[in-house]
């Protein structure tokens, strides 16, 4: 288990290294350069050269890469060529907003999907099970931004229960913070719950066919007792994997929800950086997002054998 964890950690570090080279290459080497992009196509060559010299862009790419990487490792994402400001505080602040949003959404979707999916599997041949499956199939097709718009129309514009946009830090007022969080979190969670319900349902169906469930049933346990005592832990494995993938997807997918609800998350910062042609900020934010996705994958890879001893022993 320990060797497995170490080998996964090494893989993680290598992936991060390759990804950082890819991001750097894409941003710094391809068409034109950051200074040209920041100043626009009409900039004079002199102005571009001056900005390049100011930020050391005239140095060889390899040096710039190590400078950038070294900065990030010490928690410094660099200075924007567009605003001239340090972008580290912006990234740190906005990541927190997105993290709150995404973790709350995943937690809510698990709370919805696990009971619903289990129920749909147990009542598979029943109209309830079929209905749950059909609803989750339709739910998967609804983009989260459409869910958000529908929720805003109903609960904000019509009923007036929740604000339609805005953000309040928890220290400014916890009630206001929660109130503004409800609609964005629910819009993200509903669609994810629909996806997760299908996985939970099929994981439970798979488990119910296992020999150890049949043994438990032969021993005299009821179907649901057998499932709860022996089955759920086994059904959890594919569900953990999928929830990890969803968490990673939502980190970026939340960008649209952040825009709709005007939340100062990392996605909003990314879109703003793209609009401002602030390549240093784009580069830094992309790297943070990729880092988070890789960390989530690492955690999932280590968590799965902990939950399932069979995989642990095989590894």
């Amino acid at each position, binding site marked *: 288990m320990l060797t497995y964890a170490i080998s996964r950690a090494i893989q993680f570090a*290598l*992936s991060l290294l*390759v*990804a950082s080279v*890819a*991001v750097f290459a894409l*941003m710094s080497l391809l*068409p034109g350069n950051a200074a040209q992009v920041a100043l626009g196509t009409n900039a004079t060559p002199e102005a571009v050269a001056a900005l390049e010299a100011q930020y050391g862009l005239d140095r060889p790419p390899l040096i710039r890469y190590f400078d950038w990487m070294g900065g990030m490792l010490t928690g410094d994402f660099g200075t924007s060529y567009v605003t001239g400001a340090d972008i580290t505080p912006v990234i740190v602040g906005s990541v927190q907003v997105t993290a709150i949003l995404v973790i709350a959404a995943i937690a809510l979707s698990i709370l919805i999907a696990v009971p619903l999916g289990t129920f749909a599997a147990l009542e598979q*041949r029943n109209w309830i099970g*079929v209905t749950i*499956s059909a609803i989750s*199939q*339709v739910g*998967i*097709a*609804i*983009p*989260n*931004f*459409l869910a958000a*718009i*529908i929720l*805003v*129309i109903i609960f904000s*514009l019509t009923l007036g229960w929740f604000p*339609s946009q805005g953000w309040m830090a928890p220290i400014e007022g916890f009630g206001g913070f929660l109130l503004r969080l409800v609609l964005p979190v629910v819009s993200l969670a509903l*669609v994810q719950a629909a*996806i997760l319900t299908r*996985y939970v349902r*099929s*994981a439970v*169906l*798979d*488990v119910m*066919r*296992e020999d150890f469930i049949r043994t438990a049933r032969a021993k005299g346990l009821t179907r649901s007792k057998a499932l709860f005592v022996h089955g759920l832990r086994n059904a959890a494995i*594919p569900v953990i*994997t*999928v929830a990890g*993938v969803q968490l*990673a*997807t*939502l980190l*970026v*997918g939340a*960008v*649209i929800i952040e*825009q*709709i609800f005007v939340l100062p998350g990392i996605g909003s910062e990314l*879109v703003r950086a*793209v609009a401002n*042609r602030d*390549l240093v900020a*784009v580069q830094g934010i*992309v790297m943070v*997002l*990729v880092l988070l*996705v*890789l960390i989530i*994958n690492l955690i999932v890879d280590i968590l799965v054998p902990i939950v399932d001893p069979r995989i642990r022993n095989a590894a």
Partner: protein
Amino acid sequence: MNPNPTGAPTPHETGTTASAKPRSRKGGRRTNASMIIGAALVVLIVGLALVSFVWTPYDPNSIDPVARLQSGSLAHPFGTDTFGRDTLTWVMVGARITLLVGVVAVGIALLIGTPIGIIAAFFAKQSWGMWIDAVIMRANDILLAFPALLLAIIFAAVYSPGTGPAMVAVGIAAIPGFARVARSGTLQVLGSDYVRAARASNRRVPAIALVHVLPNIAGMVIVQASVAFAISVLAEAGLSFLGLGTQAPTPSWGRMLQESQQYLSTHPELALWPGVFIALAVLGFNLLGDGLRDRFDPKMEARGA
């Protein structure tokens, strides 16, 4: 927002080794229904796009200040937008971009991902080539750390925002899914007796790949294509919603939805129609994929929608 962006095992793939039992009659019937509904929705969307080339109720760019922000009526069944443009016309013309992005993105992913997966599987079967397979699959995993939306935003930052970069980015992001499906399918085929027989009779690797592997994994690849199509519809809509995809004045469902936001309190139906059609397109390709999966892989037990 992506149903299955990473090519991680879908419900139908998980644990199939443990439960390869004969399909139940009932399950078979139900999945047939999902294929029919899915195909019907896909035909509807494709039909809208095709018809829009020869006929639309109005000129998509004709502005009519008198008829602005109307609700549904006989003249404008879906109403009109803030410039008095006919929403039904825009929905029809918008279907073109949705399908174009899907076809190009899935085409890129399929044409690059499938050969990569097949090649990786061939190397995986050789003791001297296993490391090549490992490197290919690691690279695949790293690409997975860039979700379609993120890659598309990067492309919009480096190049200018537009339909072209969006299609390419979504396509690249979908490559790992195809590579994984093709690799696991190829590994199965390579373990079969007829491939061993072909090897023994000295057929060369490219011949085996074309004659034995490709026809056998085609079904799985088509299923993946259908799922990837649904993902690309979502990604295009999302990008255009953010203003990083299809640019004005080309009609696109995502941008219609974005433009409707200002009028949510007074004209919510402006958001309704593009939203409904995005959902129908995604539902259609997802259902079609589900139905095809059960058809192409009889070993798998049909579990319904």
